């Protein structure tokens, strides 16, 4: 038994959450610093994991395995492949920024509070750390049940983050804002819970199938794969499809995929910008990640069977999300719909079943996380200055706050996948990967590129350019803390856009493994094939 690095990576933020929550009410500042330090320490651990991961080595590395609930065939099994280690890195990377960006988001508005135990600030940061812990362990889990538990459990802290710490910008008064917020939180929870419960049925079904065929039910990914390879496990077509649909439904809600997406704009609109980042850049990635790890590996045949339908839905997501983004009047909702469009690309890449598609999708997860974080956090800074989320409330910001406008533009350009910035690499890979197997699908997906330009630039034009609006006059430019949040993200976008190799090197072997799980190989170029 080696050093439990993975447990520690997930455990540290969890412990940090408890510690943060325990900070006395008066020591609000200490709680913030504690949370930040913990998240940075987690980043260090994630970085160690990233470095220690050997792309040429075994499929799952840094593994840990302990008995847990033998009765359900559940083990505490952790292990990371290249995809997981990249996403853990993303999570650990973004959380410190989320914390720093949300530094003042949970400061109590007035000090007169009836209860001394009421510690919203501590709660806010503790919940963020808790989400981080749960997301990380979901990426690490190689036991379906273990994954499921945290996949579901992370809803609860997210729910409180959305419903309890809303955006303070509201046009229609406190009460309406509270109503909207709690609507968004409930919608978030119910959608995801419904998805999760349907998945629960599938998880139970999987248990029943393995128990039936292997004698003892198991949730261990590796055991199931081995049993399948050895021919001991042979699911009936119907069973496999039903189970696949159960799993996929949950992930499609989380991702989110059209038509299960409508919770996202509400949640991202009502949550504070850092929490919105947490939702779309971190938590939602668990959904797409799980499609790669669980749907494809556990149910390869059913995955192929469902591919046409999923591709169509992904295409709809891409175009529909982008069109709706164009039609939004609220900055954060616009970004949310843009994310829906991007998740369409990710899912497209996954189910194109080519190494470019899946490798691109994995990179896309990372890059989308960073780019959305940059855009959304700057949007949050903007909104916090004016107290309105409506695009129409702004105009001419670049004149008074050029740095803010500049960073916003770069975030936007990343969102529209400008070459040279990280998202381009992944988007192009997804498109190529899709195109090489399904040319028509790839071509339709490219409309997303044009529409992305439209919604990003329209947003930029309406908010940042033109004559300076009276309400915008005197708006301060980015502060040091804010710049410190945004600048590294932008730097990262550029670095990963120019030199994504460290990431692709880690991801590629895992993608090849996944492809071989579904018995797919990349299509050969026409010239080579004809020879």
């Amino acid at each position, binding site marked *: 038994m080696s050093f439990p690095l993975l447990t520690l990576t997930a455990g540290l933020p969890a412990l940090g959450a408890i510690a943060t929550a325990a900070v006395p009410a008066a020591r609000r500042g200490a709680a913030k610093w504690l949370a930040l330090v913990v998240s940075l320490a987690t980043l260090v651990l994630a970085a160690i994991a990233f470095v220690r991961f050997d792309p040429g080595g075994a499929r799952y590395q840094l593994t840990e395995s302990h008995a847990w609930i033998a009765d359900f065939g559940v083990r505490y099994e952790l292990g990371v492949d290249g995809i997981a280690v990249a996403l853990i890195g993303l999570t650990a990377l973004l959380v410190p920024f989320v914390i720093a960006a949300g530094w003042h988001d949970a400061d109590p508005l007035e000090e007169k509070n009836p209860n001394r135990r009421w510690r919203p600030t501590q709660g806010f940061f503790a919940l963020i750390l808790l989400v981080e812990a749960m997301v990380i362990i979901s990426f690490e889990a190689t036991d379906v049940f273990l994954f499921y538990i945290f996949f579901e459990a992370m809803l609860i802290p997210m729910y409180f983050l959305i419903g309890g710490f809303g955006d303070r910008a509201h046009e229609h008064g406190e009460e309406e804002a509270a109503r909207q917020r709690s609507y968004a939180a409930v919608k978030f929870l119910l*959608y995801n819970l419904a998805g999760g419960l349907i998945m629960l049925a599938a998880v139970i079904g999987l248990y029943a199938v393995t128990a039936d065929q292997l004698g003892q039910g198991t949730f261990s990914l590796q055991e199931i794969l081995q049993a399948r390879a050895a021919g001991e496990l042979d699911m009936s077509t119907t069973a496999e499809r039903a189970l696949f649909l159960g799993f996929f439904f949950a992930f499609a809600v989380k991702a989110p995929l059209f*038509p299960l*997406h*409508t919770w996202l704009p509400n949640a991202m609109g009502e949550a504070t910008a850092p929490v919105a980042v947490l939702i779309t850049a971190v938590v939602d990635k668990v959904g797409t990640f799980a499609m790669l790890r669980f749907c494809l590996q556990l149910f390869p045949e059913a995955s192929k069977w469902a591919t046409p339908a999923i591709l169509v839905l992904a295409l709809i997501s891409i175009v*529909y999300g982008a*069109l*709706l983004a*164009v*039609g*939004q009047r609220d900055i954060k909702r616009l970004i949310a719909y843009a994310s829906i469009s991007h998740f369409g690309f990710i899912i497209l890449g996954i189910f194109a079943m*080519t*190494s*470019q598609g899946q*490798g*691109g999708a994995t990179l896309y997860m990372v890059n989308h996380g960073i780019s959305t974080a940059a855009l959304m956090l700057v949007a949050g800074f903007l909104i916090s200055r004016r107290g309105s989320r409506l695009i129409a409330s702004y105009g*001419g910001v670049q*004149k008074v706050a050029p740095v803010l406008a*500049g960073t916003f533009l770069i975030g936007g*350009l990343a969102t529209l996948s*400008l*070459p*040279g910035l990280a998202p*381009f*690499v992944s988007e*192009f*890979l997804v*498109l*190529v*990967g899709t*195109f*090489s197997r399904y*040319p028509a699908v*790839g*071509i339709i997906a*490219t*409309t997303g*590129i*044009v529409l992305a330009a439209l919604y990003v*630039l329209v947003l930029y*034009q309406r908010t*940042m*350019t*033109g*004559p*300076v609006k009276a309400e915008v006059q005197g708006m301060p430019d980015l502060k040091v803390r804010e710049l410190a949040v945004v600048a590294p993200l932008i730097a990262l976008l550029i670095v990963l856009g*120019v*030199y*994504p*190799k460290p990431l*692709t090197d880690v*991801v*590629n072997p895992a*993608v090849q493994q996944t492809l071989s799980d579904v018995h797919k190989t*990349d*299509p*050969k*170029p*026409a*010239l*080579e094939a004809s020879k």
Partner: protein
Amino acid sequence: MDYLIGWLVLLPLLGAGVLLTGGRRLDRTGHWIGTVLAGSSFVVAAVLFFDMLGRSGEDRALHSTAFTWISVGSFKADVAFQLDQLSMTFALLITGVGTLIHIYSIGYMEHDERRRRFFGYLNLFLAAMLLLVLADNYLLLYVGWEGVGLASYLLIGFWQHKPSAATAAKKAFIVNRVGDVGLSIAIMLMFTTFGTFTFGPVLGAVDGAGEGVLTGIGLMLLLAACGKSAQVPLQSWLGDAMEGPTPVSALIHAATMVTAGVYLITRSGAIFDAAPTAQVAVVTVGAVTLLFGAIVGCAKDDIKKALAGSTMSQIGYMVMAAGLGPIGYVFAIMHLVTHGFFKAGLFLGAGSVMHGMNDEVDMRKYGALRKYMPVTFVTFGLGYLAIIGFPGLSGFFSKDKIIEAAFAKGGTEGWILGGAALLGAGITAFYMTRVMLMTFFGEKRWEPDAEGHEPHPHESPKSMTIPMVVLAFGSVFAGFLFSWNEAFVKWLEPVTSFEEAHPPMGAAAVTGATMVVMLLGVGLAWAMYGRRPVPSVAPRASWLTRAARRDLLQDDFNHVALVLPGEYLTRGLVYVDHKGVDGVVNGTAAAVGGLSGRMRRLQNGYVRSYAVSMLAGTAVLVAATLLMRGVA
């Protein structure tokens, strides 16, 4: 030597980085940093050029691989450069004209508080444009391709506080994106066909690929070229792009970026040669655009928009030439270079005029400026002569060759293309003469502006006039130099392939016809604008003129065909998302709630009714149990 290629790109990129992140402390020196870096890039280009001259034709190309960029499965893209004669031509043009325009901008932008940023953007543009022409594969080219689009966006919208500028910038980017989609699809097609998208392997393997695929790739490349080079049907952004500062118009929207489409088609010549259908499409686009742009140019009163129409038209020539295949590639590039000189000169001249006229752009408010701005007048005049193809000046050499090549295409096609090219030459002469006459001749027509400031036309400072003079030299002598001993043909031939064009009626006849048509155009313009005074308000005119003033209704068409349906679609989808997709879920929730409310009423509080339900339940239970066995 090859390691220097990267520096070509890096130097201006460094400038952009420094200037854009440097902050206010660089405000005083920023423009010098930018200019020096652009200049040093030109020096590097020159060094490489002379190095290249030192080698013989086939060995001139240099390759340099910096690092592996993307590698997933068999998809491998390197950051790698290829410097051959074609790239070299562009590199010199870009850095040369670019440096001149940097210098010009020092004066032109002197009073703009965001001058540092302007130079940053210019440097960014240079870097992207150099990347575009130096890339050794289509994907890296695509990076430069979108990079210049970004720079163009930033520079068109440089005066962001003007809503028209912001809108124009956005429009340019989005229309270009449509073209970019073409390029990306072309790359994907190359990847699935050839397994690579590096120039060498792709162009070398064209023979093995089916014509259908090649036609597809060709058409997609053409789409890309249409976007970037403002060819019909993606031409609508160029006129609006004149919202940008004039140096930008000169550099990006006249001399360099808009010609990227021509570069792309020429670079991919092997593909087009093997895909005749795509070639037909290319020449059609070129011919239509050259007339389209020329007609628009005739009707515009805004000096920059008139020049923009002209640019569109001239690029139409180039595209058409490139579509003609080996008989045209060289002349497409040659016209591109000469056009780079004289059109940049013309734009700088226009900028100089505006500089002296309180940024007035309406030519109807000019007149008689030759007395006030002699240097501008002379340089502009030389550029004018060059563009209308006055014998001996550079435009004469390049344009004439294209017209010849068009006729040489042969058959009906040749006559149509040649005719269009000839007609275009006449119209060019007409509208350029019109510009010349309205601006520099006749009576002065300027008036005090809204705030009562009377313009005081004056010559521009040295920093502006010197680049104009340099470019004027280029406009005059470049064509002659290139044609001397067929120097340009020999220079490019190893890269683009070349065939002698033989127009059916003989080259001399074509040249003669061109001369005649040109003179007709000049004469007509003199008759309309030279002999009688120009009204300072545009008179009512024929429907064609009115349409031409509205850019031949291109925006109206786009509005009706794309924007309005798009808006309705978007609004409709927002409604659908809210009422439909969300509605289903909310409806389900409401249904459960309603069901709950109804079922709740069964719980009426009366113990006897509870007993009834228990009894009924028991009855059902008993009956069901019996039924299961079939006993009952």
